[in-house]
């Protein structure tokens, strides 16, 4: 439990931190970022909540564990779907129904509807990293507060 200044600044700020993390995850195939980085940024919002309030009401341990497991399962099954050719085959790129636009070598302004399974894998890994790091932060913070008393 931190001071009133930290608490009252945390409340309006943490949704924007999570939003920025989601932006990094979703635009991972166009700009610097990706699943791991965006997930780490979003988990820092959870860390801010834990430090300021001594726990989070919104992110429970069960939810975060479910997010982590489902992210890993979606990632592995996306890799398995391309199994007809080879494991981790990018079956959506260059002509798939979603994210299937083809691009060619050279700079371009950045088309969102490209890159096949890479954005989907980014989202799955982002979900997994948010869940994993959030669970670690919440468990460590709770235990540390408990041991300190």
């Amino acid at each position, binding site marked *: 439990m931190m001071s009133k200044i930290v608490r009252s600044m945390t409340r309006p700020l943490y949704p924007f931190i999570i939003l920025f993390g989601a932006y990094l995850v979703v635009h991972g195939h*166009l700009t610097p970022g*990706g699943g791991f980085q965006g997930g780490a940024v979003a988990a820092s919002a959870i860390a801010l909540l834990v430090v300021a309030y001594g726990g989070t009401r919104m992110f429970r341990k069960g939810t975060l564990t479910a997010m*982590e497991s489902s992210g890993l399962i979606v990632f592995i099954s996306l*890799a398995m779907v391309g199994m007809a050719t080879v494991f981790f085959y990018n079956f959506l790129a260059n002509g798939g129904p979603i994210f299937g636009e*083809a691009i*060619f070598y050279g700079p371009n302004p950045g088309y969102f509807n*490209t*890159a096949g399974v890479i954005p989907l*894998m980014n989202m799955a890994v982002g979900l997994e990293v948010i*869940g994993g790091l959030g669970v670690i932060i919440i468990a460590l913070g709770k235990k540390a507060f408990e041991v300190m008393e």
Partner: protein
Amino acid sequence: MRKSVAFGGLLLVFAFLLIAAVNLHGFGDPTNTEMDDYFIHNGQRQTGANNIVTSVVFDYRGYDTLGEATVLFTAVSGVLIALRKEGGEE
């Protein structure tokens, strides 16, 4: 006595690191870059991603990422097991 021996060994390791650093190829001039040039020139056409690092992480070297996700999952399981409610019984 033991402390000074350990410090001597540490200095030996540091000297090895320094010699290796001085004799490496020059900074900003890597030698074998065929694979990376292939990724840079063909990554956009083959995977459709503008970010070459992402296409390497999730497409060309997907196995690495699979192992990495598994390591993260195992670490989370380890933390949850180590910090569970009851604590370890002796």
